[in-house]
């Protein structure tokens, strides 16, 4: 816990203004904003069909709610009022309430992102359980109308992608650890960062509530021209994703600038920790591609309310598909690059062995980033001209070369190591196993003749769950166990940690290996009912999926327990070398009393290797730092 300020100092600060909890105020202001703007829209542009809430009104109202929400949560007190000359109020620095308020500390913001991601993971995970329940039977059981089921698929996918997969390790772990790992006390744009995290809850709520506006059946890709004639809930899908991607975009800008400009003395590019490299490459990807999908979604939304005839049958429906995947494929690398970086962050520490071929590991991340914009149309082999098939399959296969570099470094590091098989190690190795299956099945999908059969079947669904859950979620869990002592100064139980890891590993493979078989047997995607012959296989898949859901629950409960009640542990329990471990756990409000100086590589082990970090005595440091 960060130390509260001494009494005298507290009194001299301006008093906090918020009369009641900011979250409640934000909800109220959001409600007011919604009603006001929706009413204005209904007045300016009345619709005979819906006197109170028109399509235009629901969009205008949403922007009203967004503004009200952001002002209520802290934008008014901390940004608008100070601009008008009032003093900036103090930001709460201790107690649990600071997590439900506007914050400036990157660690609080990181935990806010992590909490939002974890909560959404549970919600979207429960939706997945409901979907698997439906699929236990070839006839509808839970969702009686296909549109209910399809809407569930769409919400599951959208929430998982934009709030979990792209956020947990970037907005969450990235915000928390990058400043610590590069030796700085704050991020470059803390004020923007404090606001950006609050775009996540409103994005999640928007997407979850979207069916109220009218059910939609397009799934997370919002394919046109179905979107053009689909339910109005799609408007909130566009807007929710808009909020979530804006949040990720701010994270990307903030962390890129932080890594570029705030590294401590001696933190050269050659010494930059792998995880920071991962976050940097991901952030560059985000900066390039998020604006692209945002523009596409805004156009899609305008097309729906106006209509502009851009992507509906009178326009270019396939244009949307191309624009979507132009972002959509880099998105999968946005998801997996932090995971690949985490492997090579944890393995040297656990193996007490120098990171093997470090430049190659870094280059792998960078080349994946560079190539990722060249492969998008491999999602559209069944739609494209024959002449496009060869180039897109070419780049798709080539991108596995730099992806493989993560394996090259990991394997080289494992070799001759003294591997401590802890829960994080186990999860990293499991992640390597799972992502391998994800990658190898990608080999089949990249083969165009086979793709024409496998496309849009459960084979594809299995493939991307292997890469996302197998690659990213397992690595996320590894990182959580690895850094748990850092977050809280406490540690987990090795027994429960390993049990939890093995549990999800078995249940995960039992579930998703079946997806491949189902796909080969002719089970297509987006179906709430299917031919009877597929039922037995689906039944067992669902049983395994329920075990998987329970397994995630066990791990989450265990982590939360360890965080609050786990046994206390020494400051640097893994004897890691990176900077985040060179300060107390949990880190103090300003991270380091004295900024450390880097004089060597964090990833070099062996006898007579000097400590890579020196802590200068206080006098040596320039006062401004």
């Amino acid at each position, binding site marked *: 816990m960060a130390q509260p300020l001494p009494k005298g100092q507290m009194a001299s600060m301006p008093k906090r203004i918020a009369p009641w909890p900011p979250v409640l105020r934000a909800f109220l202001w959001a409600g007011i904003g919604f009603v006001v703007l929706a009413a204005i829209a209904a007045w300016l542009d009345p619709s005979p069909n819906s006197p109170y809430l028109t399509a235009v009104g629901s969009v205008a109202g949403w922007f009203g709610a967004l503004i009200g929400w952001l002002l209520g949560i802290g934008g008014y007190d901390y940004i608008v009022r100070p601009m008008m000359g009032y003093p900036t109020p103090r930001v709460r620095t201790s107690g649990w309430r600071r997590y439900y308020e506007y914050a400036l500390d990157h660690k609080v913001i990181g935990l806010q992102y992590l909490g939002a991601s974890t909560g959404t993971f549970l919600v979207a995970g429960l939706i997945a359980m409901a979907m698997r329940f439906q699929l236990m039977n070839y006839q509808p059981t839970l969702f009686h109308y296909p549109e209910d089921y*399809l809407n569930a698929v769409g919400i599951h996918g959208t929430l998982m992608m934009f709030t979990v997969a792209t956020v947990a390790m970037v907005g969450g772990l990235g915000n928390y650890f990058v400043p610590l790992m590069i030796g700085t006390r704050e991020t470059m744009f803390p004020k923007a960062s404090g606001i950006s995290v609050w775009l996540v809850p409103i994005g999640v709520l928007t997407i979850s509530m979207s069916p109220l506006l009218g059910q939609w059946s*397009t799934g997370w890709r919002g394919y046109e021209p179905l979107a053009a004639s689909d339910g109005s809930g799609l408007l909130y899908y566009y807007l929710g994703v808009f909020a979530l991607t804006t949040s990720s975009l701010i994270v990307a800008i903030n962390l890129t600038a932080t890594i570029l400009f705030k590294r401590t003395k001696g933190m050269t590019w050659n010494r930059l920790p792998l995880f920071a490299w991962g976050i940097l490459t991901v952030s560059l990807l985000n900066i390039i591609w998020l604006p692209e999908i945002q523009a596409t979604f805004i156009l899609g939304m305008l097309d729906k309310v106006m209509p502009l005839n851009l992507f509906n049958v009178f326009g270019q429906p396939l244009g949307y598909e191309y624009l979507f995947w132009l972002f959509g494929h880099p998105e999968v690398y946005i998801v997996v690059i932090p995971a690949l970086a985490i492997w090579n962050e944890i393995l040297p520490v656990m193996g*007490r062995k120098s*990171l093997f071929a470090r430049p190659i590991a870094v280059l792998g991340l960078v080349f994946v980033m560079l190539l990722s914009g060249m492969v998008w149309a491999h999602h559209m082999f069944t739609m494209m001209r024959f002449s496009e098939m060869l180039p897109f399959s070419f780049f798709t*296969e080539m991108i596995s070369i730099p992806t493989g570099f993560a394996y090259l470094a990991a394997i080289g590091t494992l070799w001759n190591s003294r591997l401590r098989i802890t829960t994080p190690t186990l999860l990293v190795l499991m992640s390597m196993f799972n992502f391998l299956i994800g990658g190898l099945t990608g080999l089949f999908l990249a083969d165009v003749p086979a793709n*024409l059969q496998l496309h849009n079947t459960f084979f594809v669904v299995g493939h991307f769950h292997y890469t996302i859950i197998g690659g990213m979620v397992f690595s996320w869990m590894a990182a959580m166990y690895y850094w748990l002592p850092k977050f809280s100064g406490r540690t987990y139980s090795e027994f429960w940690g390993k049990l939890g890891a093995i549990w999800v590993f078995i249940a995960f493979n039992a579930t998703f290996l079946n997806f491949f078989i189902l796909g080969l047997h*002719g089970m*297509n995607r987006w179906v709430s009912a299917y031919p009877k012959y597929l039922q037995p296989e689906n039944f067992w898949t669902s049983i395994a999926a329920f075990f998987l859901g329970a397994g995630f629950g066990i791990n989450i409960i265990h982590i939360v327990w360890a965080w609050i009640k786990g046994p206390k542990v020494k400051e640097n329990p893994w004897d890691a070398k990176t900077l985040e471990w060179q300060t107390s756990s949990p880190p103090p409000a300003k991270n380091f009393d004295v900024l450390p100086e880097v004089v060597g590589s964090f990833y070099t082990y062996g006898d007579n290797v000097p400590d890579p970090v020196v802590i200068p005595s206080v006098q040596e440091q320039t006062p401004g730092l």
Partner: protein
Amino acid sequence: MGSVLVFGLLWVVISLLGEWGATTWINSAPDGTGPYFGTASNLGVIGAHAFDFLVWVAVPIFVFVVLMIIFAMIKFRAKRGEKVIDAPKQTRNNKVFVGSWILISILVNLLVWLHPNASGLEQVFAAQLPANNPNPLVVDVTARQWEWIFSYPQYNITQSLNANGQDTLYLPVDRPVKFVLRSYDPFHTYDTAIDVIHGFWIPAFGVKYDVIPGETRVIYITATKLISTEQNPMARVQCSEVCGPGHPYMEANLHVVTGLAFAKWAKQQASRS
């Protein structure tokens, strides 16, 4: 060096076993379709060959990484309770290993792009040339929310229906079929303004191609096996692209019959429509 030898030996042996297992798996189905299933058409066979080849490519890669993980967990494990000390050998680079890794990964990727991908595509493209499809049966396939409509202009069949009035697809075996995929059919009124994309997929044929509003696309397929939905549920027409609430139900029965049986069926249908 000892570990390298042991690992290398294990890798070779297990990979060979794996290849043997994969081959058995591929040949497990009575008709040699292995795990791929969709082989009842000329295009499906191309995909199946690609699939089988890629299984063979994947096995040694899979074995290498998984064996490495297990090997490391056993051989390089620090004993429990042991004092934490750095690994005695600190190899930070190995030019031979890195160089051959990069070279092999480039070669493997080039290989699978050329074969089975490019070589398979060449066959697919060739199978699409009208010259290679003499005397084709023309089937107009109309996809709309949510129905498949099949008409046979050469036989004056505007919509082929079974006895229950459901759309069905009848095809003669071993005769090229020219599927004209379109989303509009002059014999049925349909609001084209709300038209959407559908996917024309016959799982047993191992191929699908999308039906795009406003476009007419042609795909040539030759059915190579006598199958029907009743006897093999993969022999069905299934929409493979989400197209709204009716998507799960957008399917039609398929019958691949002999040329003679087809001619008889066509006559019957023509007199009905």
